């Protein structure tokens, strides 16, 4: 996202020079195309609202007077012990223990966004590093790294992630969030690295790399100046599409009780804990499921939009990479 805010300032013409000689960067062109994609812009707006919703979580807690981990057996549960539905005190209802669903959903949004973005960024950093190294250096290093990525892709990732979480038996919220991020990144970097490696292999054959070499540029300079900038479009698209996958991964782990630890709510753990009372308290299913779906759908639409904007000729149809 930061690249786009950066672009905004670049679009303003430099006053000293006439505008016509200022070449428009590929990013500027992409931004122009992106703005015309109504679906992508709409999902960007939805995600911005989601960020606001998550950022203001303490504020919701303050306004309602319901901290996310506090139970209110008297006001939130009816005499038979059933949670109350959406209403004046509990805007989105209460859960089976008498906690405020709205406040918990807001904190859950924080977890989803933080874990999703952090894991995707971490995975892309590792993926780019490994992919560039393998593709550019080549030789035995390439063979080893490529095999390593193949093996990682062949692992039953959910099971290994569960195993990792149970052997570490983390109890603190911060540690469990960090572990979740690392686990997701570990299982996502390989697919990323494989694509980057392929890109680097084809870039390496380009004449402008040879030209840089003939000018006397070293490997590091070529990687930084000539290879990486040509990967950025691909990296942006892949990272944006990795975010929803990571969010789903986190929600699944938390749903099974091996993701983010209690008492910190996550949309996944909210769905897991409430599943016994869905029949009577539909909002316990509807609220987190809707938010989760909205977020992943928006990120997917955003990713598709970014891809179309960065690669206008690109075939939207070619599916899994």
């Amino acid at each position: 996202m930061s690249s786009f805010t950066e672009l905004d300032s670049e679009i303003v013409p430099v006053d000293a020079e006439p505008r016509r000689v200022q070449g428009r960067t590929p990013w500027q062109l992409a931004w122009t195309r992106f703005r015309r994609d109504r679906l992508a812009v709409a999902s960007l707006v939805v995600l911005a609202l989601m960020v606001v919703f998550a950022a203001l979580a303490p504020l919701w807690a303050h306004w309602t007077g319901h901290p996310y981990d506090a139970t209110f057996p008297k006001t939130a549960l009816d005499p038979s012990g059933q949670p109350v539905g959406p209403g004046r005190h509990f805007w989105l209802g209460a859960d089976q223990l008498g906690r405020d669903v709205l406040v918990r959903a807001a904190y859950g949004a924080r977890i989803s966004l933080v874990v999703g973005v952090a894991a995707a960024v971490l995975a892309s950093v590792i993926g780019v590093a490994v992919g560039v190294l393998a593709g550019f250096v080549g030789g035995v290093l390439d063979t080893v790294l490529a095999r390593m990525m193949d093996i990682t892709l062949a692992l039953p990732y959910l099971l290994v992630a569960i195993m990792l979480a149970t052997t570490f038996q983390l109890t603190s919220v911060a540690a469990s969030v960090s572990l979740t991020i690392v686990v997701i990144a570990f299982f996502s970097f390989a697919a990323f690295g494989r694509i980057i490696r392929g890109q680097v292999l084809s870039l390496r054959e380009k004449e402008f790399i040879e030209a840089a070499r003939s000018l006397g540029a070293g490997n590091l300079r070529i990687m930084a100046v000539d290879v990486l900038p040509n990967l950025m479009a691909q990296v942006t698209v892949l990272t944006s599409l990795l975010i929803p996958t990571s969010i789903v991964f986190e929600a699944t782990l938390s749903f099974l009780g091996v993701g983010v630890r209690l008492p910190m709510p996550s949309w996944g753990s909210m769905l897991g804990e409430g599943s016994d009372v869905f029949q009577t308290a539909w909002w316990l299913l509807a609220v987190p499921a809707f938010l989760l779906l909205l977020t992943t759908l928006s990120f997917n639409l955003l990713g598709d939009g970014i891809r179309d904007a960065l690669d206008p000729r690109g075939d939207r149809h070619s599916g899994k990479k």
Partner: protein
Amino acid sequence: MLRFVIRRLLYSVLVLWLVATLVFVFLHISPVPVERVIGGPRATTDTLAQIRANLGLDQPVIVQYGRFLGRLLRGDLGDSYINGTSVAALVRDRLPTTLWLVAGAGVIWFVGGVVTGVYSATRARGAGDRLVTLFVLIGLSTPPFVMALVLLYLFSTKLGEAGVPFFEAGPPLQEHFLQRMILPWIALAFLMVAAYTRLTRGAMLDVLGEDYIRTARAKGISPKRVVYRHGLRSALTPVVTQFGIDLGALIGSTIVTEKVFGLQGVGQLVYQSINLGDTPVIIGVTLMVTLFVVLANLLVDVGYSFLDPRVRLS
């Protein structure tokens, strides 16, 4: 050909060895003592001592590692210290349910994905195609456990009240088999149908753009024949490859579906073990499923190389 098979076989062994080593390393770098991880949170001091003796935890790490690999080679996946049986026995009881689940879901997602994919590829950019694209986006954005929860809520709660027995919980598997399995199948297959629609559509569009397809059209072959006989045949190759890989990997992803629908399969076993802190079961299942995945990949690769000799050279 033989060299290729041997190479792939060695590679599979390498993967298994790496996963086993990974498990060992996880156990030993965990901040929790190994006997506590194995024995679970409620293990008594006697049990802990017994585990220490069984695993030889007082011996050097390298000896422990050797014994760990040795046990695995003999097919000993370890014992559950919580209910006292061997992991292999636990898995054996639960495996049929999971295999049925995966097989049914596999049929649904493969047939569903290919049919929808071909439909949308032959009507590229039309209204039907747009609808399919929307479905794909929603499908790819829906976590399987959310799909399962929503299906369960809609069909068993709402329609159940209306007297439509779409779903019945509880054993045994043989009774009302279809009624019990249909929702889990759909829940498990939903995301994959979307993924395979996208995959098939892409492969079909690629193939239909090829010169030989245009030649076939120019020769006056009927559009139907072009699409199904000439196009689909070559478009299916990458789809089938992916299918083999995913089918193996899916065995590990049945956990949420089995939990939601209360199916007593391997996934349920894992879920119950998470709650009990029964780590040996989780480790054993992980290793076994890895074996399944590796075997599936091996079969796909070798089968594929029979069909397409280019694979062997790469």
